[in-house]
């Protein structure tokens, strides 16, 4: 009998799902996790560079908001936010679009092709219009292909969109070979022309304004439009969507056209509005970072502004630290990774609850004494993680 009891003893930690904590508590959990992550990053940086931590934090701020840097940081954030906005409608629908990198790149490619062909033959306005249309259409095509297969045959969209990224990269490389016979791996400004002119003579202002507008428009679309509502219903439960008569296939395809189109727009801004050149790494992994931005921002465009700035700020700051200390610029990727791990992990404490069974240890002693302690109900100690 005693043997049986031992075997079936309740475990020390029992995990149960909870309905989600209040918004305030969730924020505290996340803030604590980010703080711990930052602390860890600071320790790591000090260990690697051997610098005074206070000096280092100053360096981080200088890197992000120092003289002449603030506006560049803002522009960086705008570009990342643009791609993040693009993936958000798809994610709200639980469509795992990890192909934003490719969709943005193909948009950039379309922009570059138009610039390459027409920059010396067309006046600015029609040129920009043509660039925009082609970038948006190209991105939309790249986005809708996986959606069509997903909607009709349930093809795994994660893997499909991932593959599309690399096809886009090769297409860009093909264009590089055709456009620049010298064998260079970038098609430069001289071959593409000026693209989108500066707004009020301020560099990057156009991009920032477009993304700011887009954020507001997308927020309204997702939160207040009928389409946005349908996306949410499909994402929450396809069964409910069918019950109220939503055409699920149509919504999936329509939403991915939108998602791809915004990615294409991001490509336009990056190529036509910033670099005026194209190479196969022009998106610089923003398509992947965007997934985290969107996910961390709870797929809400307004929260995503915050998460974008957090990530861009860290990356730029860490860049500065590594430049000053003569370290490799990839140091910022390591720090970003660490912070992401903590934020990802923090979700657990918001959605699950841990119950510690302290009698787990006590019983061991009781068993030795031969007491039938298992007949007593297990005492569970509910500890709120915060």
């Amino acid at each position, binding site marked *: 009998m005693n043997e049986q009891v031992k075997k079936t003893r309740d475990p020390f930690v029992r*995990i*149960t*799902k909870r309905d989600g904590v209040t918004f305030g508590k969730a924020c505290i959990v996340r803030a604590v996790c980010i703080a711990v992550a930052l602390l860890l990053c600071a320790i790591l940086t000090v260990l*690697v560079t051997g610098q005074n931590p206070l000096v280092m934090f100053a360096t981080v701020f200088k890197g992000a908001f120092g003289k002449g840097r603030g506006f560049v940081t803002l522009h960086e954030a705008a570009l990342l936010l643009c791609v993040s906005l693009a993936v958000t409608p798809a994610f709200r629908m639980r469509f*795992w679009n*990890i192909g934003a990198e490719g969709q943005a790149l193909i948009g950039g490619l379309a922009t570059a092709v138009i610039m390459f062909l027409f920059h010396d033959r067309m006046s600015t306005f029609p040129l920009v219009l043509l660039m925009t249309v082609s970038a948006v259409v190209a991105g939309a095509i790249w986005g809708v292909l996986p959606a069509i*297969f997903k909607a009709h*045959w*349930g*093809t*795994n969209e*994660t*893997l*499909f969109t*991932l*593959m*599309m*990224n*690399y*096809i886009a*990269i*090769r*297409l*860009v*490389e*093909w264009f*590089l*070979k*055709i456009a620049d016979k010298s*064998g260079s791996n970038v098609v430069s400004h001289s071959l593409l022309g000026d693209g989108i002119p500066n707004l009020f003579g301020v560099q990057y202002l156009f991009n920032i304004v477009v993304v700011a507008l887009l954020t507001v428009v997308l927020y309204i679309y997702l939160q207040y439009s009928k389409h946005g509502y349908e996306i949410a219903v499909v994402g929450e439960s396809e069964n409910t969507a069918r019950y109220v008569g939503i055409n699920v296939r149509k919504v999936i395809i329509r939403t991915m056209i939108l998602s791809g189109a915004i990615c294409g727009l991001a490509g336009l801004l990056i190529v036509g509005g910033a670099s005026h050149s194209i190479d196969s790494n022009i998106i610089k*992994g923003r398509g*992947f*970072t965007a*997934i*985290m931005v969107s*996910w961390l921002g709870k797929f809400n465009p307004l929260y995503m502004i915050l998460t974008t700035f957090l990530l861009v700020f860290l990356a730029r700051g860490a860049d500065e630290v590594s430049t000053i200390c*003569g*370290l*490799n*610029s*990839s*140091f*910022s*990727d*390591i720090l*970003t*990774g*660490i912070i*992401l*791990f903590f934020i*990802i*992990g923090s*979700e*657990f404490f918001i*959605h*699950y609850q841990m119950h510690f069974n302290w009698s787990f240890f006590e019983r061991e002693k009781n068993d030795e004494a031969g007491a039938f302690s298992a007949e007593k109900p297990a005492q569970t100690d509910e500890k709120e993680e915060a």
Partner: protein
Amino acid sequence: MTVLITFIQRAILQATPLLFGATGEIITEKSGNLNLGIPGIMYTGAISGVIGGFFYQNACQAAGYAVVPIIAVLIPLLCSLVGSLLVTLIYCFLTITLRANQNVTGLAITTFGTGLGNFFGGSLIKITKSDVPYVALTKISLAFKKTLPFASKTGAFGTLFFSYGFLVYLSIILAIVAAIVLNKTRVGLHLRAVGENPATADAAGINVTKYKYFATAIGGMIAGLGGLFFVMDYSGGIWANNGFGDRGWLAIAIVIFALWKPNFAIPASFLFGGLYILYNYISASMALIPILQMSPYVVTLIALVLTSIRNNREKQPPASLGLSYFREER
């Protein structure tokens, strides 16, 4: 004829990192974990090996000893396995224990691992205050590249089959062993059950968490060897930032193309390796190179679409791929 033989030889060299990555990812995915951190883990495996080798080579130089081949192989190998294991365990802890989203976690691992590789690859000398100009582990690379003794004496046959370092053979052996374990052993049966239907496996008394941890960790370590091979053998011990390129993602493509079977991954890797370098051997115009390089991805997409349309139940991803398991959830 000789061109063909060099082509096949190069293709196999090109295929080896892919095969390591694909075998590792297949084992991982069989447990229901979609580890998109594989590219980062391969970087980690590479740089961990480089760090180990770097210290050993420097120590040898400082002491004036010659590099001992067996130690020159073992130290980086061990470092590589430990490095990949540690990074993979982050993924395991987040997705299995904390039940985090696998896509997001995987991508974060890739960011982290790639950063780790490029950071140490670029800053190793600075951090260790070493006086060498750049990381060149040529002596260690020679130990890795050591071929079978009769390779050079058996002509074309030798070039085709014996002219590789031991990691090439290891990659093939691991793929075959993985296939046998998955299909012919009780552990394999249990692992597949975990990836297909964790609730059923749990009810049958299989420890789902343990299987997921072990499969993902072992998968990550195998994938890390792909990175090690790339830097130590293929690149001759010279680290180049981002030199590994998109091979990690290509390995994931092979998993799909090989229909989640490690034995299929062997020819699939060779095919992809061949397609990767085909442009060097056909007299197409330069412009067509990227189109040829695109082919592995296009082929994979077609495979993915066809399997979903035909809906053959045997050729699908593991049914619970990408989902975390929580017993009390219904």
